[in-house]
């Protein structure tokens, strides 16, 4: 594959574009890749390349000076390699979604936006991280919890879920949020809970998301997955499924997620496999009790043809109570880091960026995205800076407020503050700060550490030192909505919850 600027090119029909101040974000629904187009002219080029006989013609029409052509040709080579652009066979008509409901339809604001930003400052001298830290027009990753109701009572539940909240959003309210997300150009939502499949309107709202061009990735404990539901999910485009499993065996898993939960998760995986769903994800929260099972999780994923996704345990929600018993040791963190370095195909979604202080950076943005590139909508419509800080101190507003989600994302005082340059504080003198960025804000907050101090799991040991000198070990859950339906404790032996 050799790029030739004298040939015609086309944008892959599965690519969605969203304008940003630096250029645009391009998301490929086929291979799930996200790319920053770091110049308005490149965004204009990618958007309109279908219309030109050659790429050079597009350069000229957009007004890109010839001195910059080598850089643009490199960019197009990269986009071709990633599947975003392809050489066009003019014998085959370009087929792009013209329905504005489609995820890959060109964003309606694109034409006017391009015209107004072609004179934007060039990107020279700024890094991608710099640009992302100042915020985006919409989140890259929006987690949306659909209900506090849950058939399980996991000891580490971020949202302390259990019983439905009477103020949870109605079906119509949820559809209005989907409309807002479509208008903002949100590529997809991560749906969680509680157990989202407990909502009677689960499929209705999932299908509405897809119809409005908002992709869906949802997490389930699998307890409500049937053969019929798996087949229905398999028939839908733009839907990913993630099954939660926190132990390779029943004893390890059920100690955290409750009696019978391992069997339910495995049965859900069987249903998805039998329905030819394709590559679902197996999602694991890494704890002191399961890090030794990493190879087993990898083998299980291979067994199902699934992807393995690992995420960091946080002391949020009920996780505050189980933190001391379950968070990995320093030795285990090093084991995990080495294991991940050798397996770049294992998904971590930027979860372990604090481990990058050990050496090479792990794949991902390697920054705290709270209020910058991520946020959370809870079941009653409150918007928080990230999924791990469901606490009043990090509540930015509500989708029920005037202006809806877009107003909160764009204008909340909390988010504006998070998008300002942050102090490295006590970590400023540490040589690893550029790699770990001081770690996770939520983890610091809920262990009572200052936000400009080290992460409690700092691999240099500074977090442990800081915790030793902190009067409050765990921040009380006041200000957090607790929907547990019974007291929950870690069952190191098999127990019912």
């Amino acid at each position, binding site marked *: 594959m050799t790029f030739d600027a004298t040939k015609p090119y086309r944008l892959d029909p599965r690519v969605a574009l969203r304008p940003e101040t630096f250029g645009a974000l391009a998301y490929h629904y086929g291979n*799930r*890749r*996200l*790319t*920053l*187009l*770091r*110049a308005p002219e*490149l965004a204009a080029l990618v958007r309109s390349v279908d219309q030109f006989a050659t790429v050079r013609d597009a350069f000229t029409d957009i007004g890109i000076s010839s001195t*910059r052509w080598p*850089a643009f040709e*490199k*960019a197009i080579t*990269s*986009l071709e390699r*990633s599947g975003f652009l392809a050489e066009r066979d003019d014998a085959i008509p370009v087929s792009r979604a013209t329905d504005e409901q489609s995820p890959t339809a060109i964003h309606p604001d694109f034409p006017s936006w391009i015209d107004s930003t072609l004179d934007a400052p*060039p*990107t*020279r*001298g700024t*890094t*991608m*991280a710099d640009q992302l830290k100042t915020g985006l027009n919409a989140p*890259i*990753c929006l*987690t949306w*919890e659909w209900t506090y109701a849950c058939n399980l009572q996991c000891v580490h*539940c*971020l949202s302390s879920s259990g019983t439905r909240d009477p103020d949870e959003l109605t079906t119509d309210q949820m559809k209005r949020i989907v409309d807002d997300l479509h208008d903002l150009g949100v590529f997809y939502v*991560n*749906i*969680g*809970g509680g157990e989202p499949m407990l909502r009677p309107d689960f499929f209705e709202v999932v299908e509405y998301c897809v119809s409005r061009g908002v992709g869906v990735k949802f*997490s389930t404990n699998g307890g409500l997955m049937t053969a019929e539901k798996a087949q229905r999910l398999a028939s839908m485009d733009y839907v990913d499924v*993630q099954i*939660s499993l*926190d132990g390779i065996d029943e004893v390890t898993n059920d100690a955290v997620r409750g009696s019978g939960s391992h069997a339910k998760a495995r049965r859900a995986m069987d249903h998805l496999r039998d329905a030819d769903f394709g590559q679902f*994800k197996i*999602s694991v*929260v890494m704890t002191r009790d399961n890090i030794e099972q990493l190879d087993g999780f990898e083998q299980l994923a291979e067994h199902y043809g699934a*992807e393995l*996704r690992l*995420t960091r345990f946080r002391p949020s929600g009920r996780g505050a109570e189980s933190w001391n018993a379950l968070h990995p040791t320093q030795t285990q963190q090093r084991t995990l880091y080495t294991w991940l*370095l050798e397996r*770049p195909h294992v*998904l*971590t*979604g*930027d979860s372990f960026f604090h481990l990058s202080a050990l050496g*090479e*950076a792990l*794949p*991902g943005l*390697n920054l705290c995205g709270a209020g910058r590139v*991520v946020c*959370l909508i809870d079941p009653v419509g409150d918007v928080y800076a*990230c*999924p*791990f800080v469901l606490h009043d101190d990090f509540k930015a507003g509500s989708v029920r407020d005037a202006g809806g989600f877009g107003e909160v994302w764009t204008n909340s005082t909390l988010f504006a503050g998070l998008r300002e340059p942050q102090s490295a504080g006590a970590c400023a003198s540490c040589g690893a700060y550029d*790699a770990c960025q001081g770690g996770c804000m939520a983890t610091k907050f809920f262990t009572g550490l200052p936000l400009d101090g080290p992460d409690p799991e700092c691999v240099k040991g500074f977090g442990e030192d800081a915790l030793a000198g902190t009067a409050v070990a765990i921040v009380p859950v006041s200000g957090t909505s607790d929907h547990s339906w019974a007291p929950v404790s870690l069952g190191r032996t098999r127990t019912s919850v």
Partner: protein
Amino acid sequence: MNRCLHVVRTTLNYPKGFPMDDAATTATIEADERDDSELLEEELLVEEVSIDGMCGVY
């Protein structure tokens, strides 16, 4: 003439094994003994980030 070692552009700490394109691999270029006036900045116009698996649910 101020002759020195210039870093033309420093951007990201890409991990080993992370898919890198030509633009990325050339993002950090040490230009040895180049005159300040001849310093050329390369534009890094495309950056791919790994976000699959990024979500806040257990």
